[in-house]
């Protein structure tokens, strides 16, 4: 028997035991299937933060404001003298404004975050790159 190669139980090409590997692979697959989260995709509305009042940073450009307020139980967007009820109307008004000075959105304490987000979305859709949020209303601190 000297010099004769020992017969191997498993030859590489034909009968490599696949069962353990398949077990592990299926366990991994089940793990990822169970743990992966298929949540709704999230978007972001970016804004600079500004302080109102004497602490505010001086600006060379005339600021443009969108006030989000509660008037007669309804959330309204106020741009200058105009009171707008819908996001579409706000977008149309903002679309006509110059974009260089940027826009500041000032949310009142009584409105919902949803209304503030709608104003920010309208500003983004209207093409304002420089957007800032100013905490409005209510006592400080």
């Amino acid at each position, binding site marked *: 028997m000297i010099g004769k190669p020992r017969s191997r139980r498993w030859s590489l090409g034909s009968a490599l035991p*696949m069962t353990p*590997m*398949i077990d592990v*692979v*299926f366990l*991994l*697959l089940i793990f*990822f*299937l169970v*743990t*992966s*989260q298929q*949540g*709704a*995709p*999230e*978007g*972001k*509305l*970016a*804004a*600079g*933060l*500004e*302080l109102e009042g004497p602490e505010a940073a001086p600006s060379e450009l005339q600021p443009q404001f969108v006030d*989000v307020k509660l008037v007669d139980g309804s959330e309204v967007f106020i741009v200058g003298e105009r009171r707008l009820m819908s*996001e579409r109307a706000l977008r149309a008004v903002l679309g006509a404004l110059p974009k260089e000075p940027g826009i500041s959105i000032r*949310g*009142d*304490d*009584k*409105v*919902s*975050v*949803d*209304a*503030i*987000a*709608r104003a*920010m*979305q309208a500003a*983004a859709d209207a093409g304002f*790159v420089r957007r800032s*949020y*100013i*905490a*409005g*209303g*209510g006592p*400080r*601190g």
Partner: protein
Amino acid sequence: MRRARFQRARVQGFDLTPMIDVVLQIIIFFMFTSRFGELVRSEIDLPRQMGDDSAMAVEALVLDVTAEGGLLLEGVPVGIGQAADVARARIAVGEASGVRLRCDRAATGATLNRVARSLASAGVDRVSISTSQEGAP
């Protein structure tokens, strides 16, 4: 008899390679797409808006704001002052460049304003508000 031998040969020679290929592809897909970091975030009904593509793409500290006005930092309730201190510290060491607020759409502006004032006072000048693109107009 010939037929039985033929069937046995077919069973023995069953090729597992395509199945293993597919299963491994699926595993790799899930490895890349699963987001373990978001598992610690609380369930929040975000404002339904599309958001802005040019929004903060860099690392941001995520702060959850519940409908009742509570704040959660990585799932742990925190006070406004504490959240602002953590934000200032993380920005100072370069771990974050801003704060991402995951506000419940039913939360009041009063809560958002208190958080905004606190963050601005702490020197944080960039925030973004998370939105849910599902159901956005």
